[in-house]
């Protein structure tokens, strides 16, 4: 495909879609498909279309995450601008007919707070584009960013544009993306690599997986633009082995893009070469750390190595390597298409743009939401996601998985951005947000995260390997009513050691959940220690207490 053909294809597909009476889009990411059976519903809708004699007028296809994952499966009716949740196969004829009365109480309109309160950039194609059809992506303006950089811009200008946008890495650390690109672009090397870190392993985080499953071409386009900017010809997507559907979708997307000449030896018939290969993780959380990920792509044990040198200088097979995560790459094409000024107009001064959050736990509408950086937590949880269901009380929100901390009720108005969360002992992390109600014991939650880190520690450096074990043991002792106040000092000391001396981010961040619950919920720790009881009533020391 060359440039003219791309523009023509976009036009044709747009006109075709505009000529349809309706498009019914079934959410086809893992939650809705594998678990809640949206594939079967799609089949029934197909049958209903035949039955009502509407083929060619009404079309059914899959699409990216509609956001209401807690009420799966979800289906969207494109011309009615409505999304229906908890859909069953019996609803199919009504969907095709456009009978809205059937879905009373199960309808979320685009004007409702859930969608109207969001600002969708990364998820803009969810509900519009079928992840398995490259034409759909092109019709939605896809690959226009790549076209623009190839035909109008120099690599230097691309890097400058990303720098001006103020985009920061969405993997957790928040390093300015433009600066990272500049570092790689500046290296003199005949071989460079671009890696997409899709090893999203934080429990409770499913943004990246949803983007890969729902809009894979967007990530490929972002990677291709990055490769053009830094001068790379080979890319890798490192996908978590636990997400087989994401692997499949990405592979399909790469095949399609290569067939259409959007990836390969001559991208868009220009003198720019870029290929992408998929690498599948094999169940190691630590491989989300960039040097461990590199080791894993090289076929080795996924153990991190000390930095510096950082991957932009010495990465995959010793060559300069750019590593960004899925959400970061997913932001690139819109920035190029609409300009850095547009992107920088969203968010706060220090954190530009939007962020996708995965909401789970005790909340009315668990799922995916995307809001501008700096949106208060209260807005996300209560205005958009409907708050905590009746009968439960909000206790805390756990952000960013085992590396981050909790946000208690008194900080509900904190703006969600990198620095302000750090100030209250938490962090954005990758964007998981788990709402915890009063029935959950915070000490138990801390032990849960420590157990996770203990299992996932690679074992290379001593502070992490032995420190996680000791911290887990200490927490276990406290929960079982055999702890003492000296144990709290020990926890603090181990935390200090791990933060200061661990080799990689896993060990450095592992104490965070403990220290943040200790900071905000010390009374729960003390109740376990002094009164051998759990304030949440969830982990009352059972048989063990008899031993004391």
């Amino acid at each position, binding site marked *: 495909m060359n440039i003219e053909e791309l523009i023509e294809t976009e036009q044709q597909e747009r006109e075709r879609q505009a000529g349809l009476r309706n498009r019914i889009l079934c959410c086809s990411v893992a939650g809705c498909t594998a678990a809640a059976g949206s594939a079967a519903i799609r089949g029934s809708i197909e049958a209903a279309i035949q039955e009502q004699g509407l083929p060619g007028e009404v079309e059914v296809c899959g699409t990216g995450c509609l956001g209401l994952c807690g009420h799966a499966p979800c289906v969207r009716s494109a011309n009615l601008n409505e999304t229906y949740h908890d859909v069953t196969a019996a609803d199919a004829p009504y969907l095709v007919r456009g009978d809205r009365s059937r879905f009373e109480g199960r309808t979320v309109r685009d004007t409702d707070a859930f969608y109207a309160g969001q600002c969708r950039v990364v998820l803009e194609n969810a509900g519009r584009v079928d992840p398995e059809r490259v034409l759909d992506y092109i019709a939605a303006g896809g690959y226009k960013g790549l076209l623009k950089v190839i035909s109008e811009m120099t690599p230097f200008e691309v890097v400058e544009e990303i720098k001006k946008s103020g985009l920061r890495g969405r993997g957790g650390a928040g390093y300015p993306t433009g600066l990272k690109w500049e570092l790689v672009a500046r290296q003199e090397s005949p071989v460079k690599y671009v890696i997409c870190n899709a090893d999203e392993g934080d429990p409770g985080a499913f943004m990246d997986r949803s983007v890969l499953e729902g809009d894979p071409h967007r990530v490929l386009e972002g990677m291709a633009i990055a490769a053009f900017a830094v001068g790379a010809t080979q890319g890798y997507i490192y996908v978590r082995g636990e997400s087989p559907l994401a692997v499949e979708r990405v592979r399909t997307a790469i095949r399609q893009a290569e067939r259409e000449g959007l990836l390969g030896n001559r991208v868009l018939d220009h003198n720019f070469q870029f290929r992408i290969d998929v690498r599948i993780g094999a169940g190691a959380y630590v491989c989300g750390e960039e040097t461990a990920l590199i080791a894993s792509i090289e076929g080795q044990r996924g153990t991190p190595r000390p930095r510096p040198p950082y991957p932009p200088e010495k990465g995959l097979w010793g060559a300069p390597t750019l590593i960004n995560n899925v959400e970061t790459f997913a932001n690139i094409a819109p920035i190029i298409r609409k300009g850095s000024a547009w992107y920088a107009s969203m968010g706060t001064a220090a954190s530009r743009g939007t962020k996708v959050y995965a909401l789970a736990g005790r909340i009315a509408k668990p799922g995916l939401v995307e809001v501008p950086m700096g949106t208060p937590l209260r807005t996300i949880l209560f205005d958009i996601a409907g708050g905590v269901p009746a009968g439960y009380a909000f206790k805390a929100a756990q952000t960013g998985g085992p590396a981050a901390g909790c946000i208690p009720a008194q900080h509900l108005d904190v703006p969600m951005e990198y620095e302000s969360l750090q100030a209250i002992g938490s962090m954005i992390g990758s964007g998981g947000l788990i709402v915890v109600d009063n029935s959950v014991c915070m000490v138990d939650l801390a032990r849960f995260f420590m157990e996770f880190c203990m299992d996932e520690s690679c074992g290379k*450096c*001593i502070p992490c390997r*032995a420190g996680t074990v000791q911290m887990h043991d200490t927490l276990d002792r406290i929960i079982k009513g055999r702890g003492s106040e000296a144990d709290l000092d020990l926890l603090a000391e181990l935390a200090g050691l791990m933060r200061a001396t661990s080799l990689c981010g896993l060990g450095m961040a592992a104490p965070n959940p403990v220290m943040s619950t200790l900071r905000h919920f010390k009374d729960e720790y003390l109740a376990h220690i002094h009164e051998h009881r759990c304030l949440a009533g969830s982990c009352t020391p059972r048989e063990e207490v008899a031993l004391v």
Partner: protein
Amino acid sequence: MRVRTLEIDGQMMTGAPGESIFNVAWNNGIHIPRMCHLGGLTDVGACRLCLVEVEGQSRLLPSCMTPVREGMVVRTNTPALQKHRKLIVELLLAERNHVCAVCVANGACELQDLATSLGVDHVRVRYRHPQCEVDLSHPRFGLDHNRCILCSRCVRVCDEVEGAHNWDIGHRGTNARVISDFGTAWGDSESCTSCGKCVQVCPTGALFSKGASVGEMRKDRSFLKYIVTAREKHQWIR
């Protein structure tokens, strides 16, 4: 070749470009504690004992893997570093079964020496007492996992110097173990050449010669420098 001038613990020193802080300090009589580093092997920066403070750096840096820079100001023995090192040694002692009184390497153990020099007179964390195997299947040597600290010196010497790559690390986290060949008994290994280099570089009593009783295992770690110099510079000097 221009030398680099830097300050370590208040003394001015010089080092060659690319030389590590650890080496420059060591050559000038400042012995930074370490477990995984051994001259002649590539560094991995795993033990975190040789971490030092470098002015202008927010994080502690492993001195064995950080090259000297002009004008660097390094501190190797601040109270904070001492505190960290002490706790790391305590974690190591509690992780497996380090019972000096019945150890072949008693009196010639780098972990024991380090604990003594750091003043570790008791361990504040709980001893884990894991069940660890002792592999005595090799005709000349033994491997006692109870004493292993996973420094990976044996893995590297076997791969880089002997070229056999009998050893590697298997499993992960606290379950990580040094493994031979297919994770099978050392005596059944087809790649082991029985050269004994791993035994000599092991800092503790994890690898030992058979026949050594409590406190009798003495190791010659200087041999490594000897062979590496011989190989690289063609100079056979002890």
